[in-house]
């Protein structure tokens, strides 16, 4: 099993690479996307504007690789760039793989939302083990207007904690920082993705 951790050029990609190795992946960190991987990961680092610049430059190859059925995992901002657009650092276009947009949490709560918070599941078989578990969040933006979700959290508002469409998965939480639960999630992904 070979995973690509996409290097946008900013932030900590060390943690997600270590976590993927722990669950059995051979990990390549690169900014060049190709179809010779079993999983491609958009790490949850940086800000939307800078990550969006990367996406804009690579949109064609990303869409092509996604089109041939290579599984993707987007974490936090890595999930947000799979939406249609986002408002972090001004209006930026995303890949549009999921319906919806990323915007600041619209509630009177401390931001960023940083720390361990519980997630809950609905209508899911693959991710039922996440129900009622604490996972780690560090974000101010969430996905709005999505087409439904199987895992969600509450922080002033209810928000999607996990989006899925075919073999594309996005998580608002950081599995690589969520201790045993996060490792279990990444490990479940390997069997679920059949890669």
């Amino acid at each position, binding site marked *: 099993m070979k995973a690509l951790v996409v290097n946008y050029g900013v932030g900590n990609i060390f943690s997600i690479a*270590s976590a993927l190795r722990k669950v059995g992946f051979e990990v390549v960190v690169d900014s060049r996307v190709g179809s010779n991987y079993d999983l491609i990961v958009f790490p949850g680092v*940086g*800000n939307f504007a800078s990550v969006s610049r990367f996406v804009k430059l690579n949109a064609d190859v990303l869409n092509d690789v996604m089109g041939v059925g290579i599984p993707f995992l987007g974490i936090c901002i890595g999930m947000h760039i799979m939406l249609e657009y986002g408002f972090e650092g001004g209006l930026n276009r995303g890949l549009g793989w999921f319906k919806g947009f990323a915007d600041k949490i619209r509630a009177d709560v401390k931001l*960023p939302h940083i720390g361990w*918070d519980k997630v809950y599941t609905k209508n899911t078989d693959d991710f039922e083990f996440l129900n009622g578990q604490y996972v780690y969040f560090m*974000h101010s933006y969430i996905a709005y207007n999505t087409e439904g979700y199987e895992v969600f959290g509450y922080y002033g508002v209810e928000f999607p904690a996990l989006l899925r469409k075919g073999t594309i998965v996005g998580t608002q939480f950081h599995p690589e920082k969520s201790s045993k639960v996060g490792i279990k999630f990444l490990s479940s992904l390997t069997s679920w993705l059949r890669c």
Partner: protein
Amino acid sequence: MIAKRIIPCLDVRDGRVVKGVRFTDLKDKGDPVELASRYEDEGADEIVFLDITASIEGRRTLFEVVKNTASVLSIPLTVGGGLRTLNDVSYALSSGADKVSINTAAVEDEKLIRNASTEFGSQSIVVAIDAKRIADKYLVYTRSGTYITDLEVVSWAKTVEGLGAGEILLTSIDMDGTRLGYDIELTKAVSESVKIPVIASGGAGDLRHFYELFSICNVDAALAAGVFHDGIIRIYELKTYLKNLGIEVRL
């Protein structure tokens, strides 16, 4: 509801964990990699790693130790000490830090907070504030507590929030290492004046001190070092104790 976090702090000098009283009289407390992974097993919610002499000696953080520590952890790691430029921040993050903590450089160059939070996101930028009571005011200290500024703590906290800091790590120099309890008055004043998460630090000596902190102040996390390193408080027992008293923690 979001859980209150318990965060062991590893003050590191020359690749070893050390701990002093009121920022001086340092004693060896062990290997950072071993301690960090033991704390994760015991239920720590995050680890903070401070290269405590870096500001004084103008030394860069020991990034190799950061890498080794980060590679055994699957909880967040914050790294601070001697980070002075955007490049330092970038290097710390690419070495495996999930967040960076900036203290002296934030005071000396406010633009650093704004630039770092714009580039890496507010959620990765912690501003550390070392506070000491002088007469009826709390003033900000820099350079590992050796240099006094004319900044008042609450107004500085609001300033860094406006500049894009994602969290404040608030340390009471007066209480640090004393084991007499957190500085409730200081912590309450800061946590009520900002709308970003606040981590309280300095003075933990007893389980009761954590309960006092969380029940009186609207803080998000409690940081401690010596009581954990010396085995006086075990993290799992602390969290069980807090949970029994109705404080939400991750167990």
